[in-house]
């Protein structure tokens, strides 16, 4: 069983643009997005989802529970 990442979702209503996820990701999956959230924050953008190992550090450390790593566990 290998974990497969489906996608990384950042909630624009919750994210405050602190960029802790960008800094803490061991695989450097995130970039700073050029788009602003409705509140005007520069949100993280999961640019390299293929590199994600589903360690869930971004999810666990996010102070606003804005990051969700969607994982599907299927046999590969």
């Amino acid at each position: 069983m290998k974990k497969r990442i489906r996608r990384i979702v950042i909630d624009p209503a919750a994210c405050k643009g602190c960029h802790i996820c960008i800094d803490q990701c061991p695989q450097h999956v995130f970039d700073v997005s050029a788009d602003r959230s409705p509140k005007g924050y520069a949100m993280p953008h999961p640019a390299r989802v293929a590199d994600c190992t589903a360690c869930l550090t971004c999810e666990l450390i996010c102070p606003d529970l804005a990051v969700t790593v969607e994982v599907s566990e299927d046999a590969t």
Partner: protein
Amino acid sequence: MHPIGEKYLRKSALPTLFCPGCGHGTVLNAFLRAVDRMGIFERLGLVSGIGCSSWVPVFVDTDVIHALHGRALAVATGLKIANPGRTVVVFSGDGDCMGIGGNHLIHAARRNIDLTVLMLDNGIYGMTGGQVAPTTPTDAKTQTTPYGNPEPSFDACGLAAAAGATHVARYTVARPRALIQGIEAAIRHEGFSFVHVISQCPTQAGRYIYNLTRPAEHLRLIQERSIGARAAAKLTPEEREAKIVTGVLHESTGRPEFIRQLARVKEAAKA
């Protein structure tokens, strides 16, 4: 919003009032995960005092008492005595718990009442504008100590252990997995559990004490300074002074728990 937030957070109170990058949000995140793992959400009773940290339970969609400044433990003691079936968790800040509420802390610890205290320590009075707190490091520049803090900071865990707490631990928000496990262990412990959580305050402590502008930098500073209790035992006292020693620092089982003691008194009075 992460599914765990969807499940347990009070939607009408969102977004949280924490500044961008505040570590207290990470404690909320970790607390929800610990509660989810343990399946105790239905019997939670959360109590908090005043300060940034004391807003953490307000966002949890359960029974919450947002009490007076420093008096969270007094209110929590009453709640636990009146309703021993509740799992009572107290969220308190360093100012709330070490400053104005210090006396309540030592007496709750002395009684060894079955409460869990999460003391969220950002080393400064954040909400009121960055004044010096009992946990501010010596020589730190704050709004009220512009030439450096002349006082030594409080050893919160040492105080709790000396006063009689039977489970004393320290964690940082920079290691969320350890924090989740630590919160779980503290809640499971029967007796007074004191958990010292080191959290970043990018707005006040980060900017004025450490000269850091980005929350991620402040978090990294905490991460670099933190060390496990076992590894810290090998260091000299001077080396240890500069570190944040994490893990369970004190645990004892011999002392009787207060609610059980009260039950004995009730039986004696009836007889």
